[in-house]
């Protein structure tokens, strides 16, 4: 359920186990989103959870937006019994930005069980964000039981029948892809031929100097195939993007921040606003992590700093705020 003000979640009004201490615990690790800003064609990405340490001067650019992910509305297990509160906290941080972002990207697992009331809650909470436009792609939790019918009815107005779409903002070409449908036994995420053909056509006419930002739920690079953290046919998709000087790929699904640079492509994954998952291979399964408060900072995994200044005028920077 949504909480209107921060104060309300400092007390356990709902008898849901989230008192002030519990809430702070959740917030210590709950990824609150990534603030992304294009500066001279360079995309910088900041973890919202450390917003207070940011210098507002460094956050100005020609285009800014916020990526949030994996809100899993409806999840209520001990790892985080109040995912509405942590999503609301992410929105509070967005609203505290000195300059509001142009829009939000939600990289999937909006809901936990694809229930209408779960989608309702997320939409309701995000309505209070300073940025009014939200661009979604589905996670596997959003297309349960109905092959995504409900998701498409709610969020797919701009998209192709399969749910994928693209749009332009201030010279940047954004592509939302769907890789959570028709998953095969033993396999990874899948884009499928129809979507790949569309992508090829979609970017064909663009100049190679156009910055490209691709977003999808499951990582489009192979993070850890043993846990299904990758996409079978992502190499084909990336092949269509080879000619571009600056390509950024934003994903969710793995509930932790990771980044990788490969040639002209920088890959980022965002934290969940709901609960963390273990690092690849460091647990028997990728289930929700119940982490002690003193270890929570480490779970965020935002201490890595990458700065990529290539030959190109366009490059990608990812910064922690440490």
């Amino acid at each position, binding site marked *: 359920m949504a909480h209107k003000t921060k104060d309300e979640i400092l007390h356990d009004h709902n008898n849901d186990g989230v008192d002030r201490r519990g809430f702070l615990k959740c917030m210590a690790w709950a990824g609150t989103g990534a603030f992304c800003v294009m500066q001279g064609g360079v995309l910088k990405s900041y973890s919202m959870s450390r917003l207070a340490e940011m210098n507002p001067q460094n956050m100005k650019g020609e285009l800014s937006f916020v990526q949030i992910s994996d809100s899993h509305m409806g999840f209520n*297990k*001990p*790892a985080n019994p109040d995912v509405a509160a942590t999503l609301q906290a992410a929105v509070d941080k967005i609203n505290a930005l000195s300059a509001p972002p142009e829009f939000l990207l939600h990289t999937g697992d909006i809901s*936990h*069980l*694809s229930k209408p009331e779960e989608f309702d809650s997320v939409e309701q909470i995000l309505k209070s964000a300073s940025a009014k436009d939200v661009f979604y792609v589905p996670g*596997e*939790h959003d297309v*349960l*039981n109905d092959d995504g019918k409900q998701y498409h009815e709610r969020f797919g107005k701009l998209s192709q029948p399969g749910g994928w779409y693209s749009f332009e903002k201030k010279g940047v070409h954004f592509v939302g892809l769907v890789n959570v449908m028709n*998953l*095969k*036994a*033993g*396999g*990874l995420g899948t884009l499928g031929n129809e979507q790949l053909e569309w992508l090829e056509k979609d970017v064909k006419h663009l100049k190679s100097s156009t910055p490209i930002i691709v977003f999808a739920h499951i990582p489009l690079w192979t993070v850890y*195939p*043993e*846990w*299904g953290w990758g996409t079978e046919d992502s190499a084909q998709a990336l092949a269509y993007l080879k000619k571009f000087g600056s390509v950024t790929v934003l994903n969710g699904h793995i509930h932790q921040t990771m980044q990788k640079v490969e040639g002209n492509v920088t890959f980022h994954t965002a934290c969940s606003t709901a609960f963390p998952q273990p690092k690849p291979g460091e647990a*028997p*399964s*990728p*289930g*929700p992590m119940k982490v002690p408060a003193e270890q929570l900072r480490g779970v965020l995994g935002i201490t890595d700093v990458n700065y990529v200044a290539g030959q190109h005028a366009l490059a990608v920077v990812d910064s922690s705020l440490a």
Partner: protein
Amino acid sequence: MFIASMIATAVLSFSGVVLEQNEFVTSAQEKPASTAEVKIDNFSFGPAAVTVPVGTTVTWINRDDIPHTVVSTEKVFKSKVLDTDEKFSYTFTKPGEYPYFCSIHPKMTGKVVVQ
């Protein structure tokens, strides 16, 4: 299955003593149907392979704190999404091998062998 027992009761009063006679007529008990259970936990099916006789009802129960599904690779059966502690059952009436997986986490696979 039990057929409801027929109970005939005669109550006789004699010299202030109450005697109660119950007479039970019970049908011969049928052989119970074969069942098997597969537990879903830690993103895996346990046991990952079960061998059962024809007519067995296999029940999957999700003991994980994340939802899962049970979907036949050859589209023989398909559960709705199972949240924590929810169950799905399917009765296997023909011999054969039935591979299945979780359509949300397709790395999770299992097999039912019906003999």
